[in-house]
């Protein structure tokens, strides 16, 4: 047995079924041993970044830690965007990089890079494995840290001589010894009482929910909570699906491109109950204008997030599911009918159908609404970044927690295609629809190769407007339409998909849309649909930068 066997056996002890790995000079001892462990499925992406993003989406769609592996030097640096993405969105990932041999570390050896130095600020924790005896403990700790508390990426760097070192026996530790790692569970009684008190007194409460509710699997407890106390619920991008979209208390997404009525509701609330979110600047708008007249209760598992952006009156440090259960036990039944009536009024005035001007050409929103209508109810949606991302968040009817896989905190273009690979690998029975723009597609389009090679029946929807849409929108609104560096001269994308043996169609009007979306819905193979949309279509509503939520724009001058 050698270190490489120890690594694989440790991964199997952690119940890893799928990993995304890309070989190189110093990974060969590991890749050589794989054939002895057919129960560990190794997927080869076409770029390490694709592998990292696939591992990310694997976690988001299965709740099992996503595993990616690369070689030293350039292979490792190619993982960085994927790791940073996982860090920003609290994704449980173990990223393994193989490293040059210990005697030459620090000598600028071939393909050597100080990768643990590079990933330190973008990981929950990282390890350098000095000797093979440490490897089982490190793998066990890595998975534990990645998947508990606030999930996050853990990076393990293994020198090639450690992978080759011979080992007599494989011993996997039974216990974890991390005295400095504490995981909050339940909130203290005093804080719970204060929170309940504020809830009982409030006339215009809002439950603001984020990724934490989904990570904690707390949807049921949340639904009970809002139903009992009659509290409207509004979510962040990553909180979509925490509550079913058609729940009468659900008022969609807030923020820079959230619904105007959601923003007004939050702006006029007298109590914000933040559950599993970090009050990120995309949803608060100008901080000193955020919920000025409201008390704030913040329920989160990360103490460092409480009070970081929004001023908090009552902190509930703990796990969403556990603390919501505690609150539900103390909560008294109440009603806020007048407040709900007001929000519904705002909703009627500013819902999407009211503020969207009918366009002669096909729009992305229409396509996404049609997908929402016909797709299997438990399908998974990956989005890229920019306009396509915002339209996907706005126009789809989310029914399940974690149904939307999107790069929120980092906003990393190129996410959608590799993420669809990870989502499909983790959910072979579910439909995976990968939505993206022409900019983001090209950032990781090499992953069409992974889709082809593994026969993944992913439904790829490319919105082609010939621009880096979101930047072009800002240039239109704030920079007098100076479209500098945003126009894309594109190839024939359909031909590229066909080169990868993926059947491909172009959609230019409503009839084609209905026909090919229907076909995509039925097919058991990968399919690529290129949808041509208006080059100057804009995302509305919009909260301009440095404006507070009440300044949500629902109309642009030239529309």
């Amino acid at each position, binding site marked *: 047995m050698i270190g490489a066997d120890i690594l694989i056996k440790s991964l199997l002890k952690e119940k890893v079924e799928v990993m995304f790995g890309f070989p190189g000079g110093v990974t060969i001892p590991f890749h050589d041993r794989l054939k002895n462990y057919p129960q560990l499925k190794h997927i080869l992406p076409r770029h390490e970044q694709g592998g990292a993003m696939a591992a990310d989406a694997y976690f988001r769609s299965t709740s099992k830690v996503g595993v990616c592996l690369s070689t030293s030097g350039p292979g490792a640096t190619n993982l960085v965007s994927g790791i940073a993405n996982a860090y920003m969105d609290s994704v449980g990932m173990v990223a393994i990089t193989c490293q040059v041999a210990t005697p030459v570390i620090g000598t600028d050896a071939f393909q050597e890079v100080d990768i643990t130095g590079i990933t*330190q600020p973008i990981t929950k924790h990282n390890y350098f494995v000095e000797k093979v005896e440490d490897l089982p403990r490190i793998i066990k700790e890595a998975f534990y840290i990645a998947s508990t508390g606030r999930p996050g990426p853990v990076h393990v760097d293994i020198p090639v001589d450690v992978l080759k070192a011979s080992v007599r026996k494989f011993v996997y530790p039974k216990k974890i010894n991390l005295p400095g790692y504490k995981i909050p569970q339940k909130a203290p009684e005093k804080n719970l009482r204060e929170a309940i008190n504020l809830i009982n007194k409030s006339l215009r409460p809002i439950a603001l929910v984020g990724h934490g509710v989904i990570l904690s699997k707390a949807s049921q407890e949340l639904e009970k909570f809002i139903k009992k106390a009659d509290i409207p619920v509004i979510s962040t991008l990553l909180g979509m699906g925490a509550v079913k979209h058609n729940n009468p208390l659900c008022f969609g997404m807030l923020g820079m491109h959230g619904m105007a009525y959601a923003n007004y509701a939050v702006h006029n609330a007298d109590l914000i109950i933040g559950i599993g979110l970090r009050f990120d600047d995309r949803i608060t708008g100008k901080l000193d204008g955020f919920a000025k007249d409201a008390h704030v209760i913040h329920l989160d598992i990360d103490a460092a997030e409480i009070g970081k952006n929004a001023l908090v009156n009552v902190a509930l440090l703990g796990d969403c599911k556990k603390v919501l259960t505690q609150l539900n036990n103390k909560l008294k039944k109440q009603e806020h009918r007048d407040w709900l009536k007001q929000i519904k009024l705002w909703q009627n005035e500013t819902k999407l159908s009211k503020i969207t001007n009918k366009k002669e050409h096909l729009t992305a929103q229409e396509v996404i609404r049609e997908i929402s209508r016909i797709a299997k109810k438990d399908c998974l949606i990956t989005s890229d970044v920019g306009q396509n991302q915002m339209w996907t968040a706005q126009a789809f009817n989310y029914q399940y927690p974690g149904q939307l896989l999107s790069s929120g905190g980092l906003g990393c273009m190129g996410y959608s295609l590799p993420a669809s690979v990870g989502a499909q690998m983790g959910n072979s029975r579910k439909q995976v629809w990968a939505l993206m723009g022409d900019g983001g597609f090209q950032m990781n389009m090499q992953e069409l190769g992974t889709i082809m090679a593994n026969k993944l029946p992913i439904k790829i929807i490319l919105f082609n407007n010939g621009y880096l849409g979101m930047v072009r929108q800002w240039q239109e609104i704030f920079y007098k339409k100076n479209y500098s560096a945003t126009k894309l001269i594109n190839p024939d994308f359909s031909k590229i998909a066909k080169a990868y043996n993926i059947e491909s169609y172009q959609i230019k009007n409503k009839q084609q849309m209905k026909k090919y979306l229907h076909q995509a819905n039925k097919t058991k193979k990968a399919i690529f649909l290129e949808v041509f949309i208006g080059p100057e279509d804009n995302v509305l509503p919009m909260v301009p930068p440095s404006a507070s939520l009440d300044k949500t724009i629902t109309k642009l001058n030239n529309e």
Partner: protein
Amino acid sequence: MNKEKFIILITAVNKAGVLNKILSLCRRRRYSLVSVTAGSTENKNIYNITLVLFENKNRVNQIVNQINKIIEVLSTESFLPKDVVDKELILIILKNKKAVDILLKNKEHDINVRVLKKLDNNFILEIIGEGTEVDHALSLLSKKDIIKLVRSGSVAIKL
């Protein structure tokens, strides 16, 4: 909010790179530190790190919470100077006996002064005291009397 002097006491597992992690965190969150000291405690596997910073209370609470997230960190707490005992070691080379006597004879400031060595007409002294007490004592000297001055930074202990 007002800025004031805070002392943050951190205990961490004695592992290579922990100090680097803590300081990296301060750097990227734009905290400037007055001083940093690190050394072992009564348990040789556990290190004590003392950070002195000049910040407002909210920012101090934030960095305490962030440092606590580091896996090797066992505890982090912030204090006002009056709530801990903190001392600093200064080594100073003075030009002449007159300057030495100013320090040795001072009764106003709570510092411990000891002459370590005499080289030609220059004197190397050791001063131990709490940071601001030392500042006050040094202000008794004229700049031209000080040839060289190095400070260790504060180390603090709390019951």
